[in-house]
């Protein structure tokens, strides 16, 4: 079976030449959920941005193969259409663009790029409402401008809604639990778990173990100074909770 995603010796810098990703290797097979844990400043968010194509980073080495194509050659929208989804740690507010219009444009842009039939407005609205119900997102939130005036929990539920609607092959969740109380965390992780399937993989980025009680990973990686320094099973998350990252930090140095 071909891996869904292969990161090979990836190196990346931010503008100004500071190296953040430092020889990263990772292979994820279809259906697997991997967790990346690491201290603040380790480069976890940078990894998610580099994968999704955010401007401002320079790839200085290595490659990323995703579903058979070289991901790094694609623009962010092409990566999304190829099936990559980044669940933002801090979803942005977009004044003046209604949530529903945003979802409609996103879905149909992807469909168009893949040569699929675009959804009509009624089809889209029905689908969004159904998914919204499972996440506690009401009609009013769908009419409002994207994320404007949403609480932290509402923003994360909105991210989850987008993910469920867009049905990506690969989801990168960056600190999906930040800003969430326990109830919101349950709603979001139920949504994420509902998406688990033999074809779909996930990369769950977190520096707390708590999230992994709800989204249980198959593999846990310890990430430090821009690369994976240790890999284990789901029990590694609990270990890290008890011992911290100190031992891996020295290992990396």
């Amino acid at each position, binding site marked *: 079976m071909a891996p869904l995603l292969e990161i090979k010796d990836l190196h990346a810098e931010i503008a100004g030449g500071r190296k953040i990703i430092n020889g990263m290797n990772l292979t994820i097979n279809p259906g697997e959920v991997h967790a990346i844990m690491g201290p603040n400043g380790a480069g976890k968010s940078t990894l998610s941005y580099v994968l*999704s*194509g*955010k*401007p401002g980073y320079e790839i200085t080495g290595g490659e990323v193969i995703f579903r058979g194509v070289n991901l790094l050659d694609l*623009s*962010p*929208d092409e*990566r*999304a*259409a190829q099936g990559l*989804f*980044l669940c*933002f740690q801090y*979803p*942005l507010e*977009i*004044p*003046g*663009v209604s949530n529903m*219009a*945003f979802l409609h*444009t*996103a*879905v149909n*842009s*992807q469909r168009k*790029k893949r040569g699929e039939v675009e959804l009509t407005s009624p089809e889209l609205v029905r689908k969004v409402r159904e998914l919204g119900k499972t996440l506690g997102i009401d009609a009013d939130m769908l009419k409002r*401008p994207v994320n404007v005036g949403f609480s932290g929990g509402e923003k994360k539920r909105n991210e989850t809604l*987008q993910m469920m609607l*867009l049905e990506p092959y690969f989801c990168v969740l960056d600190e999906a639990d930040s800003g969430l109380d326990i109830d919101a965390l349950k709603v979001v992780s139920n949504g994420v778990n509902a998406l688990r399937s033999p074809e779909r993989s996930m990369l769950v980025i977190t520096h707390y173990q708590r999230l992994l009680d709800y989204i249980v990973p198959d593999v846990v990686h310890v990430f430090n100074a821009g690369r994976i320094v240790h890999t284990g099973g789901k029990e590694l998350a609990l270990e890290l909770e008890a011992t911290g990252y100190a031992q891996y930090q020295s290992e990396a140095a």
Partner: protein
Amino acid sequence: MASPAPAIVRPTKTGAELALAETFAAVRASLPGGPDVAAQRTAAFDTFADAGLPHRRVESWKYTDLRALMRDAKPLAPLPDADAKAKAVAAGSLFSTLGFRRLVVVNGTFVPELSDLSDLEPGVTIASMADALADPAGLPASYLGRTVASPDAVLALNTALMGDGVVVHVAAGASIPRPVELVFVTTAETPVAAFTRSLVVVEDGASLSLVESHEGPAGIAYQVNTALELVVGAGATFERVKVTTEGSDAVHLATMLAKVGADARFSNTFFTTGGAVVRNQLLLHLAGENVKAHMGGVSLLAGKQHADTMLSVDHAAPAGESRESFRAVLDGASQDIFQGKIAVRQAAQKTDARMLSRALLLTETAESCNKPELEIFADDVQCGHGCTTGTLDQQIKFYLMARGIPAKEAEALLIQAFVGEVIDAIGEDGIRTALAEATRAWLLGRE
């Protein structure tokens, strides 16, 4: 040898100024109107001749130096022939499906056979300006040049040379649900000039929605000087949207003089995408108390387009509320100027005036310029203004792209949202939709 310094140094007249003087001398006898109108024209032309075309040292024209931008004055457009009228049939297409009452002015002349004058609602009277000027008991005799006083040279030139236009009267208490659309179209194939003047009187308690569109051919350096005088009676409601989609080489100079009575509602929105040089000046006089006035504007400019909006809001009576909300989206090496003056007279206590203008620069060569001005003589007032100039938010653009939306579409969404704040404030559904579509069309046409 000492000689006394002249008090005023009058610069040599430009070619355009000389040509305008020649034109006025040649046509004055044949312009519409009786002796009173002729006297008005002569006085106005003297005002113009004294001042000349506005230039940098005229404060309100500081950023639009017409002396430099209008090198010559084009000949007056001839009366439209059958061919010119045939070309005007499709004009005003932006609103053509909305069933508005279309009144069409071709090359500066009102054309009844292209206009919808049937089944006028009770209380509505419509006439051509040329006919109305010739009628000593007509509406212009009572109102023209008497709404808001202004020494502006471009307005004076309009008064001197006004040929035709539309006069609309709405009787007291008459509510007109069907909007009236004034379609101004230039169909000439050579550069011509048209001076149009319109007058709208909405009597006490009446209501009217007016759309005005101005368009013409690309690649021809025609000149439009158009003016509208408006009187809104006590408790009346008036809404206007003016769309300027003139051809690529046109110079479009527009003046609106509006006098608004007590408890009235006034709304005016400019939507500008076309023309090489566009000037929209609006002088609003809040004559009665408790007026609510809204002024909006959207300029979508590209290439070397230059658009200048000049507002002067005169709060002359207590408890008036004025809101100004302007947006400019600037591509290429275009320039947008916004000058907003709010004056609050001593009598105008409890005035609440707010002005906001925002520009979005899509390139490094585009320019925006904001000049707010407050002149407040009353003490119990709220007055605020703000202006911002910025670029598209790259973080938000990335967020949209990360959801699969291509760069150009992401930009279009953000720009539509930016101007949507103004368009959404328009009362008529159909107009809002048409302007949103026009915005989208402009965005898709961007290089």
